[in-house]
């Protein structure tokens, strides 16, 4: 790949993520060729052999746009976030993990000690008689080996460095990626700090009929034998659609699965989980509330399992209470 003088310079990086966002870039299919026409990709660890020191050698603001996916949970990721921020004119938090902490953010329900204990010592399939857990440095006869530090608390990208734009989704859908790239190429980006997705919630794009919002009891997906052609919430399935930013064209709903909230908070919502919890509590038992005792209501609410995991599946690190208080 030769560097064109008039071409844009892109970088892609992954931090605490699953790799799905990297695949999402390729989900734009043949349009990737237009991207390569318009821009040189200078740094992309998943696809190119290039070292951190090559990035360190660049002038500040040398990269035009950096697409950064993944949350920040290690010192290496924090270092790369700061480095790429310095080297990039525009930094885009790409995908749910970079935007709101994502699934790795649920690690904030534990801390390093608990995670290491489970992952390296207590899992039934773990065979670790010497009880080795990751250390930041260890001396061996060849010298000192080091590993990045693993933090107690997972952070979103914007909690570590200044972020210019947010491209939500797990992963971001190809049409939103293309819209973003088109806006970059045409120098037509919205004001800094914008979320590069529509100002609507998932329900607006959902195919199901909305009749009347009230639920008798909560059902889990496997308990529903036949999905009717109406709003999943109205069928008792917890769907995060009302509190979640759209732009995804409600793809999960097309597959008869509820929204789990990867788009992050809907516009004007600061805490997606609390907002959805509020909405759900409103409609749960609405029909029969005047005939219910306080105990009946408590029983109904008790059926909502794993409150943090359900309502904060992708946003715990950026929510009002960003982690569990460890005793």
């Amino acid at each position, binding site marked *: 790949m030769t560097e064109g003088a008039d071409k844009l310079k892109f970088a892609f990086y992954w931090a605490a993520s699953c790799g799905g966002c990297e695949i999402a870039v390729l989900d734009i299919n043949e349009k990737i060729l237009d991207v390569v026409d318009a821009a040189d990709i200078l740094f992309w660890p998943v696809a190119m052999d290039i070292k951190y020191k090559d990035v360190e050698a660049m002038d500040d603001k040398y990269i035009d746009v950096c697409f950064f996916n993944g949350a920040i949970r290690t010192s290496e990721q924090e270092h790369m976030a700061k480095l790429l921020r310095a080297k990039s004119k525009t930094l885009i938090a790409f995908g749910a993990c970079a935007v709101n902490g994502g699934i790795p953010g649920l690690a904030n329900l534990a801390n390093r000690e608990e995670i290491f204990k489970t992952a390296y010592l207590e899992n039934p399939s773990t065979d670790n008689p010497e009880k080795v857990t990751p250390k930041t440095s260890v001396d061996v006869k060849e010298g000192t080996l080091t590993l990045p530090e693993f933090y107690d608390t997972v952070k979103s990208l914007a909690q570590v460095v200044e972020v210019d734009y947010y491209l939500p989704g797990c992963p971001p859908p190809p049409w939103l990626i293309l819209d973003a790239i088109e806006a970059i190429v045409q120098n037509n980006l919205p004001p800094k700090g914008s979320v590069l997705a529509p100002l609507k919630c998932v329900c607006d794009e959902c195919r199901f009929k909305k009749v009347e919002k009230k639920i008798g009891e909560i059902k889990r997906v496997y308990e529903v034998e036949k999905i009717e052609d109406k709003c999943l919430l109205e069928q008792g399935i917890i769907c995060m659609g009302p509190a979640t930013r759209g732009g995804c064209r409600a793809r999960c709903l097309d597959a008869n699965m509820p929204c789990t909230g990867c788009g992050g908070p809907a516009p004007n919502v600061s805490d997606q989980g*609390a907002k959805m919890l*509020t909405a759900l509590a409103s409609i749960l038992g*609405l029909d029969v*509330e005047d005939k219910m005792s306080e105990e009946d*209501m408590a029983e109904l*609410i008790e059926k909502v399992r794993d*409150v943090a995991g359900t309502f904060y599946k992708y946003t715990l690190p950026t929510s009002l*209470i960003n982690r569990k*208080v*460890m005793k």
Partner: protein
Amino acid sequence: MPEEFEPKIIGFLCNWCSYAGADLAGTSRTQYPPNVVFIRVMCSGRIDAQFILKALKEGADGVLIGGCHFGDCHYQSGNYKAYRRVLLTKKLLAELGVEPERVRFEQISASEGEKLARVVRDFIEEIRALGPNPIAGGGND
């Protein structure tokens, strides 16, 4: 702790019952400690779980929600909604390691100034026994 811990309580009171109850407590000169700051809302059903979490994050040691008695809501079902929200919010707080007792729902009518004062006194002592809110100030790393 160098000084004795004085709990800070935020109270959300509905316009039609609980706030009128607080007014009655005032006009009747019923005494209760000054640890509580009341915020009037039109209905307890207006109270979003975000308000409760934000109050806790920004330093409240306890959050009191006062609504009409069940069946008496000016808007028919706001207090039921508030009650269920409080229950679900308590469940969330427990999962996040915050004592659910820090959030309390009470049904207080416009004629129950005494009850309001009693609830406030009782809640302050309960929170005093719990100690400072562990997430106050958002410094939760």
